[in-house]
């Protein structure tokens, strides 16, 4: 079996270690004998074929502005189709905001998003605190089997406050701020497209979620009977507990 992962803006939208998500997906596929090919799609590159997985990381405000048009014009159309066809997508922080309706800055300027996720982000005034710190979330995912729910731990660092419209959150905040620090929601989900504020990197310390994304990609491509061989996750789970213990 093999998978193709489209990595959007690996150079400019990959701060705070979001590359770790790509590394985790690649390794955990590899350890099971599944080849995972990565398409690196920087500014200027067009996404025209459907990949099996999509990863879109966070960037600084300036980088988000720089890719705004490129994202809508060269990647947007295929990405919408991928989501509608149940390709798993993980978008972190800036990527999450741009899969939503976009981002409106305190000075009135705005970044237009793709609107796949019914999520709108507003930057509060300069004086407002950024949401920074370790975050623990109880996730709620579709398909109620044993691998579909659980705790996620990460690190958030965002100025923007996001509110959801009709879509579901990725989960409920146990510790930390989440989308806006007020409604207890973290991230967003539509079909298998997930937006989140969690860096950390998110996937290495939450191996069940990595496997959830891999399994969905494989089942979509090779059929619903596919299962994943379990791995020894002792180190990952120890790191997860240690990070949960650091969250205040």
């Amino acid at each position, binding site marked *: 079996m093999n998978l193709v992962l489209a990595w959007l803006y690996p150079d400019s939208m990959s701060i705070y270690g979001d590359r770790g998500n790509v590394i985790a997906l690649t390794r955990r596929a590899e350890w099971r004998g599944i080849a995972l090919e990565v398409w690196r799609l920087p500014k200027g590159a067009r996404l025209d074929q459907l990949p099996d997985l999509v990863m879109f990381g966070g960037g600084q405000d300036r980088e988000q502005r720089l890719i705004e048009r490129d994202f809508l014009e060269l990647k947007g159309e295929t990405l919408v189709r991928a989501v509608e066809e149940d390709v798993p997508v993980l978008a972190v922080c800036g990527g999450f905001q741009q899969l939503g309706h976009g981002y409106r800055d305190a000075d009135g300027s705005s970044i237009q998003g793709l609107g796949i996720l019914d999520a709108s982000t507003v930057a509060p005034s300069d004086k407002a605190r950024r949401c*920074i710190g*370790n975050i623990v979330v109880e996730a709620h995912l579709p398909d109620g089997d044993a691998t579909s729910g659980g705790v996620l731990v990460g690190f958030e660092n965002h100025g923007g406050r996001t509110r959801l419209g009709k879509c579901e959150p990725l989960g409920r905040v146990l510790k930390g701020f989440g989308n806006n620090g007020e409604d207890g929601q973290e991230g967003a989900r539509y079909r298998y497209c997930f937006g989140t504020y969690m860096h950390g990197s998110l996937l290495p310390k939450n191996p069940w979620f990595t496997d959830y994304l891999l399994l969905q990609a494989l089942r979509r491509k090779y059929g619903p009977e596919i299962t994943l061989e379990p791995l020894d996750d002792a180190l990952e789970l120890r790191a997860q507990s240690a990070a949960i213990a650091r969250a205040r």
Partner: protein
Amino acid sequence: MQALPLRHTVAVAVGRAAGLASRRLRLGGGTTIPGAVARRIDARVTRHLAARLAGGCVLVSGTNGKTTTSRLLAAMLRGAGYRVVHNRAGANLMAGVTTALLSQHGDSGLFEVDEAVLPAAIRELKPRLVLCLNLFRDQLDRYGELNTLASRWQQALATLPASATAVLNADDPLVASIGASLACRTVFFGLETVDHRQTDMQHAADSLYCPRCSGQLDFEAVYLGHLGHYCCPICGWRRPDPSFALTGIRLDPAGPTQLRLRAESHELAIEANLPGLYNAYNVLAAAAAALTLGAAGEQVSAAVGGFTAAFGRTETMRLDGRQLRLMLAKNPVGCNEVIRTLLLDPDPLNLYLVLNDRVADGEDVSWIWDVDFELLAGRCRTVILGGTRAEDLAVRLKYAGFPTSELPLEGNQEAAIRALLARTPDGGRAYAVPTYTAMLDLRRTLTDMGAAGQFWED
């Protein structure tokens, strides 16, 4: 000279007394408390103290290399006859600068300042020279975003008069672009050598876009992180030509680094007991500032020749018949450079990696996923992990291709050092690679083990 207000005199006296008390009582913190106390009493105490320095002040800032560069520069300036007041222990917020001003006598100030503090330091100290090293992604949880920081630097430097000088890194697009609209004199330094030149950018690199028109920059050469030779294919903006350049760099894992420096009209051979390409940049930056301030070429090379690194930055000590080398790694680019330096060692590596997530380290440890630990897989004999987030490091190394059975975690620093040395062959080399607060802890541990002196005494 205008009489100073009584408040100033009281602030100075109380600040000094606080320093004396904290030393007597062995409370530590002697490098910041006096300044903090004095500033509480008189908010203008720092500017008054600085104004008394006839030779003016020099500031050094940047993400990586502040402490080593300012120590190098201090040695060069002393060699050139300056009597330098210097926050050499690396206390680089305004309280640390003020403490140095309160506790030392001299005719000139030399201060390393935190990136976020540079604007305040420029306002209060009215420097005659500001040395800007680099801007890397470091602790975004503390500083906010890189471009915001660069524009704050730009605004602060724009207040300097024509008599002042900004010494800027030509190889860092973000730093070099600051030089465009300044009233003061600008001087650039950079690397002009085929040695250690790469053509591929590391993942950890920042600032890939033109600071003027936001076009994607073309890099013809990359030396370290995003430092290199670049131009913008859209607006034509390019790296300024440096008037101080390294034209040759020879790194040797066992011996000193050999550098060839081109300074305006002449060439200089420099030998430095500092490993790694990042230290070549530090020497170049310090030399550019010292030569601009009137030091002679031979004073510069003599100062570098007699130099040993600040504690923890890169320090070599002997313990139990082994050589232990400490290398601070506090952000992705810095850590990648440490890895590049480790790879110069031809023997299997013996490593103790320590990752802390305290406030001064940055509480976000995501950055370890931007570090190319993959390069070390298969090159190590021993790896011991420690720090408040040792578990995260273990996962990172597992995913970098290290066998999981060879990743022991040791929470006790002394036990970790003992285990590291026990697994290092007699007469061999071992390396400790800590983050910032882990480095401070390690200092205490090694002091207790009899391997290092008191921090604030150096």
